[in-house]
């Protein structure tokens, strides 16, 4: 027995199933799947962090054309990027088993959207697997490969955050299923043409009911219990439902849906048989609920289906055991257990996520803010740690949409307000992901924006994964670093400067110069993330020199600088010795660790 995180269980299950090529792009809550594959690689798996999700899906598709078992990992919004190859691949199909793991994030806890990736299964007419626990995910991913190979189609595997980041004791099987890829065999079936798409569309439509029938006897789809009331659920909500039923000693018919698409119709009819009322408990969108309503219409069943559409289940945010217990206790008319009342809770400090102490993004934002003081400017941000630059006191992120969009949103803003200086901030990994086309667009269409690349030599937000600029791959190879400033120059950006943001004075001057340049200009702020940087001497405040003006706190918002009565002090456990506060203290009261110590 091993204690495995859901994502580790998915990875171990894929290794057990004989996966040979694994690609992906980091994104919470999916990241640890690919990392675990790389860590536990028995030696014969090719694993890469691809440049983006579209690239990842295509690399995996190619390998699956050659008969390899392949897996792609991404978060839900990554599927939007990968949707172009996904839709076409659904028509072409695969030879080796191909599983696309797309992790959804109800809440959302670390995402831009609460989109439901089960819809991608419906949209592309692909089978979807929805695990309810890490141990189930470990076995189910193997089934996903089997179904993929049996039906020659890519399949979606859709865990959610509470499965991905839950740990459970899992029985790990040491045996590995052996796959011997046949290799690519030339055939016109690999070339998508309108005629082929038409023919394959017919085949796909014929396959859907077969899959539905097959899924009705799939082990993780099941119906238990008896009575005139029933609950239908799937994924982590199944776990909450079991917990809630046991909390209130409730009994009813229970339909667990592990394959929301194609919907296991025969099993669903068995569940609906004899029922008067059904409560559907799921997160994100009412997918199971609509399938049941459809079946009631199709078979003329007079059953009251309740769920998100009837407001019996919340239609946004994640479910909890408490919310599910409340809903079930009302549905079954059993009182819910009393929750202890908490009275007179003292005012709790608000603790939003912030840029780490020592983070080079703080210095970059500060330099731009300084340089643009009194000048009309808009700061378009992007996805990464640096989105946190929106918080007080920096307030340097005015827009954030999706990966790579800061560069292009800035261009749109500039078309309407040409007298405003439009900045676009983008991280190094995001630059490679989807930033480059936006830069080329600005060059080509002669848009006057200032591009700020925050190059911290890692993919920081998701836990420091390598990217094309780091010179390392997930196979452990040292490769040529792709230099961002070279890319910018190569695509025609005429004003490109690389500078360390902690060289504050010069950084401010360079930002001013870039802002005055006509046409797209770029500054690459290069300083490593504290997680990959060597430690530096810590900083301290000289109490005799500190006047308590608190400029350091008010302007930087560094978590290591805290109020100490009427002065300030630096928390040595958090300080990374970045030098930024030393540079801005008007009284020279902050310095390396020997300052202030007599």
């Amino acid at each position, binding site marked *: *027995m091993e*204690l495995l995180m859901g994502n580790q269980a998915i990875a171990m299950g894929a290794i057990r199933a004989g996966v040979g090529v694994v690609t992906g792009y980091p994104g*919470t*809550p999916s990241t640890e799947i690919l990392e675990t594959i790389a860590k536990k690689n028995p030696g014969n798996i090719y694993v890469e962090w691809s440049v983006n999700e579209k690239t990842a899906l295509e690399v995996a598709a190619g390998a699956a054309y050659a008969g390899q078992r392949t897996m792609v990992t991404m978060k839900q919004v990554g599927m939007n990027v990968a949707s172009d190859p996904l839709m076409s691949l659904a028509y072409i199909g695969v030879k080796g088993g191909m599983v696309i793991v797309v992790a959804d994030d109800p809440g959302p*806890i*670390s995402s831009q959207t609460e989109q439901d990736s089960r819809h991608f299964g419906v949209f592309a007419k692909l089978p979807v697997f929805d695990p309810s*626990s890490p141990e189930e995910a470990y076995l189910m991913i193997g089934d996903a490969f089997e179904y993929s190979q049996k039906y020659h189609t890519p399949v979606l595997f859709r865990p959610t955050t*509470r499965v991905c*980041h*839950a*740990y*459970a*004791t899992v029985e790990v099987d040491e045996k590995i299923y052996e796959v011997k890829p046949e290799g690519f065999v030339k055939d016109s079936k690999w070339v998508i043409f309108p005629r082929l798409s038409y023919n394959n569309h017919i085949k796909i439509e014929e396959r859907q009911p077969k899959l539905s029938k097959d899924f009705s006897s799939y082990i993780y789809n099941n119906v238990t219990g008896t009575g005139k009331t029933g609950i239908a659920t799937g994924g*982590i909500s*199944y*776990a*909450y439902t*079991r*917990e809630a039923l*046991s*909390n209130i000693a409730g009994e009813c018919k229970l339909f667990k849906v592990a394959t929301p698409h194609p919907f296991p119709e025969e099993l669903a009819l068995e569940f609906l048989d004899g029922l008067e009322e059904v409560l559907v408990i799921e997160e994100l969108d009412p997918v199971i609920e609509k399938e049941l309503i459809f079946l009631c219409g199709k078979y003329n069943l007079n059953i009251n289906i309740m769920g998100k559409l009837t407001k019996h289940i919340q239609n946004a945010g994640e479910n*909890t*055991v*408490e919310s599910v*217990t409340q809903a079930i206790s009302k549905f079954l008319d059993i009182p819910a*257990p*009393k*929750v*202890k009342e*908490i009275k007179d*809770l*003292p*005012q*709790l*400090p*608000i*603790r*939003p*996520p*912030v*840029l*780490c102490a020592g983070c080079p993004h703080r210095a970059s934002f500060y330099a731009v803010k300084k340089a643009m003081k009194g000048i009309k400017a808009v700061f378009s941000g992007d996805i990464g*740690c640096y989105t*946190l630059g929106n*918080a*007080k*006191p920096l307030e340097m992120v005015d827009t954030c949409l999706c990966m790579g969009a800061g560069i292009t949103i800035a261009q749109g803003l500039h078309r309407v307000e040409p007298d405003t200086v439009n900045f676009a901030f983008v991280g190094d990994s995001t630059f490679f992901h989807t930033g480059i086309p936006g830069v080329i667009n600005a060059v080509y269409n002669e848009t006057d924006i200032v591009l700020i690349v925050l190059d911290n030599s890692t993919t920081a*937000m*998701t836990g420091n994964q390598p990217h094309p600029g780091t010179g390392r791959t997930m196979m452990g190879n040292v490769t040529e670093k792709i230099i961002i400033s070279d890319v910018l120059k190569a695509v025609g950006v005429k004003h490109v400067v690389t500078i360390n943001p902690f060289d504050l004075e010069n950084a401010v001057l360079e930002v001013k110069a870039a802002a005055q340049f006509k046409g797209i200009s770029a500054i690459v702020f290069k300083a490593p993330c504290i997680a990959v940087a060597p430690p530096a001497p810590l900083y301290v405040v000289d109490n005799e020199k500190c006047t308590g003006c608190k400029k350091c*706190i*008010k302007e930087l*918002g*560094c*978590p290591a*600088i*805290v*109020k100490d009565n009427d002065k300030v002090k630096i928390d*040595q*456990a*958090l300080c990374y010795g970045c030098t930024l506060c030393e540079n801005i203290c008007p009284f020279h009261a902050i310095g390396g660790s020997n300052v202030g110590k007599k």
Partner: protein
Amino acid sequence: MLEKNNKCEINKGEKMINCIVTGVGGQGTVLASKLIAQSAMNKGMKVRTSETIGMSQRGGGVVSHVRIGNEIHSPLINLSSADVIIGFEPAEAVRYLPYLKELGTVIVANNPIKPVTDSLSDTNYNGADMIKYLKENVAHLFVLDAEAVFEKCGSTKILNTALLGVVAASGVLGFSLEDMEKSIHEKVREKFIHMNINALHFGAETYLKPNSKKCE
């Protein structure tokens, strides 16, 4: 002081144990929950835990739910059902009080971590109000003097194992010091084992020495 009758029955494998581990990103809560889980597994128990991973790790509040027992479905603990809250920070312990059982136990370190929002405003968060509230509202409370731990162990990174020392010495989760030592040997990187075992023992001594129980 924690009362002896609060000891759990984990060794008999009959009871479900729910434990919340909470603090601020970077304090080492994840390792603490892993060590508890490992200790349970070493006794043949099944474990489910849930961790905060991602954006909120950056200086935000973090929480681990640790559930031990053979008939557990959800990785998250229900409100009013945690046997123990291990708080790495006073306000974070208070924040999760709604999860504590009526007669549950709170083991908390008394060092406040001031968020940037506090430094930027006129609120003066210092942790003392939180400890006071805990004393008035928690049936079984032990407050660990964090400064003493940092001073004695020479690092701020071992608060987790010091708190687990209190957990072991008090017996609230049913694990002994030896159980925790074994888990540390299995789960902590070689060069940090010694430091963590020291902190574990210091935490346990703090709990056991009568003159150290100033925080009742």
